[in-house]
């Protein structure tokens, strides 16, 4: 039988605020356990939540960026369940009236076509703390630093039909939240993670199959693997005459399998009700207008502009607009040197390679846009060749400093003095009589060898264009 996969994702994006969603405690990652747990984070008797305005601004920006309806009235609700890392015994979330409803994201499929994925909603909620089982001598430790961290839960419609589509969708959301500055998207630190609802059905069957929910997938690779494993498991199960049960499953990356966490029967009745400690969030037109105006150019619009304004190809633009910081960097360089093609080549070539090698984000690149532009200008004015520029780039990367001082101190300035070049050319012609003979006999290819020898003798500093010209003149006489 032919099977079809249906996937919906619930992405949790941690919002990039300095303080928590309902208190002034810091959200900084990596502090000693419970040092960022104020009385609100601890759920102390008598303390009350006070909404951090910034999270509302961020959620509104997200809603606008995906073309969704940003609700002028949304309501926080309590989701009740007991767990040691949930200090109040309830999580403050949104249920019936979320802040963002609808919206869509376009993803590019493997064959290059676009597919529109609709979103159900996005709502604000607080994160729970962390239970720690390691080095606790058989006990469980509770770290409430993360409790109360603001999250935007982004829920898609079940419109993704493969693990690859799920990953493409997640990447788009990841790109977007970083673009609009509402999340750092750091997956290692858990700032961006997702749950996947996965089901299968025979092709052409209208009714959805029973779904399993895969919890806490925190890397693009794991999402793809976990979904594929789950799809295989479900198909195999059904083909063997079994039935998929609605349950929550955990992906174990070490054993490369998904396994059951709890069934629907064991699921909590969360007893949601509107949180009486918080007023409904009412957004007036002025607020919405300000949020709209604070939106930067979005990735797809930027890509379009790069293609038309800089005459770049779609493939080049993809990398340049993947992150806002990369695009800004590129634009800063090209503004200086007035050569989009050259700027694009260097940003997606040498620079990207160096960043990847050192595992750095472009925001903290060892060579900033102005410095790179300074280097590229030296290619443009023939001070150095493109090849030497790569060496200068490497030196700038490793040792710091600007292009000019490195060119100077290392004596890398291109030799353009005709007299000096002629001397080298003469020497090479004298040293390679056989090759000269072959060239004169009509073997054009030998010219490359001779040029190479000249460049070598000049330690790469000879201007290749001039060398070619002088060599040809001399060989033809």
């Amino acid at each position, binding site marked *: 039988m032919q099977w079809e996969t249906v996937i919906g994702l619930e992405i949790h994006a941690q919002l990039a605020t300095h303080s928590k969603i309902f208190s002034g405690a810091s959200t900084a990652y990596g502090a000693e356990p419970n040092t960022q747990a104020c*009385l609100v984070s*601890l*759920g*102390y*008797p*008598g*303390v*009350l*939540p*006070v*909404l951090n305005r910034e999270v509302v601004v961020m959620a509104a920006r997200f809603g606008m960026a995906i073309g969704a309806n940003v609700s002028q009235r949304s309501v926080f609700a*309590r989701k*009740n369940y*007991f767990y*040691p890392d949930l*200090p*109040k*015994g*309830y999580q403050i979330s949104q249920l019936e009236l979320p802040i963002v409803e609808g919206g869509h994201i376009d993803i590019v499929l493997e064959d290059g076509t676009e597919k529109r994925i609709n979103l159900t909603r996005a709502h604000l909620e607080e994160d729970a703390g962390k239970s720690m089982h390691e080095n606790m001598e058989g006990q469980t430790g*509770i770290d409430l630093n993360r409790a109360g961290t603001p999250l935007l839960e982004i829920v898609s419609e079940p419109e993704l039909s493969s693990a690859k589509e799920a990953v493409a969708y997640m990447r788009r959301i990841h790109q977007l939240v970083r673009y609009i500055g509402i999340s750092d998207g750091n997956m290692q630190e858990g700032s961006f993670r997702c749950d996947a609802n996965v089901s299968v059905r025979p092709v052409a069957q209208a009714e959805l199959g029973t779904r399993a929910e895969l919890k806490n997938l925190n890397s693009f690779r794991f999402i793809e693997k976990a979904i594929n494993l789950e799809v295989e498991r479900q198909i195999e199960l059904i083909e063997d005459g079994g039935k998929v049960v609605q349950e929550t499953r955990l992906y174990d990356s070490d054993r490369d399998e998904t396994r059951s966490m709890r069934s629907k029967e064991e699921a909590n*009745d969360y*007893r*949601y*009700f509107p949180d*009486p*400690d*918080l*007023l409904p969030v009412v957004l007036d037109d002025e607020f919405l207008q300000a949020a709209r105006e604070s939106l930067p150019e979005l990735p797809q619009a930027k890509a379009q502009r790069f293609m038309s304004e800089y005459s770049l190809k779609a493939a080049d633009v993809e990398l340049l607009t993947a992150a806002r910081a990369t695009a800004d960097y590129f634009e800063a360089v090209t503004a200086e040197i007035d050569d989009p093609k050259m700027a694009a080549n260097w940003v997606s070539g040498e620079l990207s390679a160096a960043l990847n090698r050192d595992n750095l984000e472009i925001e903290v690149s060892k060579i900033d846009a102005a410095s790179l532009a300074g280097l590229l200008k030296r290619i443009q004015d023939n001070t150095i060749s493109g090849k030497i520029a790569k060496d200068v780039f490497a030196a700038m990367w490793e040792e710091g400093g600007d292009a000019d001082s490195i060119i100077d101190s290392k004596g890398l300035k291109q030799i353009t003095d005709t007299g000096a070049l002629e001397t080298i050319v003469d020497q090479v012609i004298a040293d390679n009589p056989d090759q000269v003979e072959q060239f004169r006999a009509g073997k054009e290819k030998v010219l490359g060898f001779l040029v190479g020898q000249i460049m070598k003798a000049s330690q790469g500093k000879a201007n290749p264009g001039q060398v070619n010209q002088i060599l040809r003149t001399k060989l033809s006489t």
Partner: protein
Amino acid sequence: MTRQRQTIAELSRLFQSGAVSSRELTEASLKRIAEHDSELNSFINVTQEEARVAADTADKLLASGKAGPLTGVPMAHKDIFCTRNITTTCGSRMLENFVSPYDATVVARLAEAGMVSVGKTNMDEFAMGSSNETSYFGAVKNPWDQERSPGGSSGGSAAAVAAGLVPMATGTDTGGSVRQPAALCGITGFKPTYGRISRFGMIAYASSLDQAGVLGLTAEDVALVMQAIAGFDARDSTCSAEPVPDYVAGLEASVSGKTIGVPKEYFEAGLDAGYAEAVHSALDVYQQMGADIREVSLPNLSLAVPAYYVVSPAEASSNLSRFDGIRFGHRAEGMTDLESLYKLTRKEGFGDEVKRRIMTGTYVLSAGYYDAYYLKAQKVRQLISNDMARCFEDVDILAGPTTPTPAFRIGEKVDDPIQMYLNDIYTVSVNLAGLPGVSIPCGLVDGLPAGLQLVGPHFAEQNVLNFAHLFQKETDWHLRVPGEGVS
């Protein structure tokens, strides 16, 4: 001091004249507590040393001429308000040894105003009760008749003020917990508009209904205290930014030509005949002052108690989830796993009434029951609110009995929750609508106090206190002292 009960206003004048010091008065209060409270049980914790330090500080302020109208006056806090360095038990075993690391806004503001807290008063466990019998620390006795209940949940505060142990005590009112005990103990109990006083540091029972209040001897004293505690607090999202008027200045306004609405439903079945008579006499007093008395209707009144006992347990079931034995409060011994830690801790830590409301609340919020109970109760709440709002289109204030009967006997209703809940019939609708209300003494029925409840529109605290004050200028019911006649 020959008189046992003195108002804040009187004490303030004594301080100004130098006739008495805060320290002397505080010692007198502590002495009366020592003499009488072993019987009354109105205090859970008497904080002598802290009180003496605060009194001495107040005396310095009084000497330097920087004192305000509340400086140096002894008082007590209901043990639901978090107090730094002093236990806050909420009347529960769960918090028997709980020490809050911070002061509630109400506590901080009254300390700032120079008041001297002598301790924390007894209360129904987590404010769930109308008789003070659900306290882990034992029932409080009514100073008028120690066989009887002082009401609840602020029963300790009411009894302490009635017995002259302190001139004022704080309370909280979720369904009548300030007004009902004030009525049963023959004192003045005021609950302002929801949102008028910060709930920060007030341990939550039902967040959408909880409101701090004041139990004192007169409306004038209430006005003085309200001036210090009312107003915006950024730590409570539901606290109003509405400006706070001068409550004392508004006390003397004439009520001539103003209209009092009397809900006819208040006088239907269930109201004690003698009590009804006391209320009618009180209305006559207003009529003599030139107020117009008019009958009004609250058609949904009979739904108030059922709606209240759905909404409040629902919120309570969630609010009390944080008491899980993990971070603070009671933790049971002998747990074998996480689930047994929760179960044993909550089984031991909570009393029956709290468990009853947690179970009720959990039930009404459960999948499949939410619409039939919680959602319907919220709709009823809106209807009751609308009824009240409609009345205020025609009248300035509503008046009626605070409770159906005077103080009942301890043990009389404790085994019959429905009977106990019906004691709240006149008070809960005021919380459901979030309105300001006061109970003032308006007579004696078989030697026991009866209360007149006055209710105003949102943020009409000034109006309510004005009506109460003028009544107290004309009558002496608020001066009656348990067993001794007029003080």
